[in-house]
């Protein structure tokens, strides 16, 4: 089930890029009805700071597990494809408390 964070095993519930785009259009209030993975979130889709808050919160919810989108990943996001890649990264990274010490 999406949002269930697996520990130790690869997740199988992560959206494909096409699913992510459909999710983006449905979940992000400021999204136009059609988007491309190459769209720049700011320049093409008009994302401002408030829109960024909406998007990060939505991605965190989609990943589940009350995970935080770290600043390092957030700064790698420019396009829709970037957002998807960082969503995937977030879904597969271990929690700090679960990192072997």
């Amino acid at each position: 089930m999406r949002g269930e964070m697996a520990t130790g095993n690869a997740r199988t519930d992560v959206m494909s890029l096409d699913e992510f785009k459909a999710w983006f259009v449905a979940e992000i209030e400021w999204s136009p009805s059609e988007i491309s993975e190459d769209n720049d979130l700011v320049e093409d889709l008009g994302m401002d700071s408030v829109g960024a808050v909406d998007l990060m919160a939505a991605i965190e919810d989609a990943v589940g597990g009350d995970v935080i989108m770290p600043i390092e990943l957030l700064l790698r996001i420019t396009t829709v494809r970037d957002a998807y890649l960082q969503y995937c990264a977030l879904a597969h990274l271990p929690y700090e408390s679960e990192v072997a010490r």
Partner: protein
Amino acid sequence: MSGPITGEDQPRLSPSLQTRRLQLRMLTNEDHAPLYRLSSDPDVTFQWRFRGTTPSYDEFLKQLYPGVLCQFVVSPLGSQEVLGLVVAYNADFRHRFCHAAVVMHPRLHRRGLGIEAFMGLARYVYYGWDFRMIIMETVGIAFENFSRGEEAGYFTVEGRIRDQFYYGGRYWDGISVTHRRDQFEKVMQGPVGQLLSPGRRVKVPPSK
């Protein structure tokens, strides 16, 4: 006063200075030089207090504290890196309001981190003082970074002075916005509440 303003399920007896991705921490001497550099960044200077002028380091320091109610350096969780500064100033205790300003490093613009830092400051201010509102003065070019916030209920545009500031070959409006206590409590029910709630951190591998 209605309800807790801590951003958490249970009321706390002390205000948190930690947001989801950020910490607001006390300003120290070590922060002065990074903030001085930030104040002169071309993408920041015309929108911050010095409006493009280049004060000496001593003058910068002199102007860093007068009128301040509280101010915090914005850093990532677990790091002392200076990402920005949030300030509450010119408090009016009779009429129960204060002003606030946020400055963030340009590479963080339009990422929502300025809002996250401001909401952390607002939580602290509303927790510690019975203010009715926080007033922010901004320039049109900066306002474009968060203008959708009025529609989303984050703040209210109260006034606009047309063509007040010259920047980049044109004049920009000066804009006054208020963020009221009831707006804070209302937006805490949405994504903003998530901004101020703790979550689980992931381990990010270094970039290749």
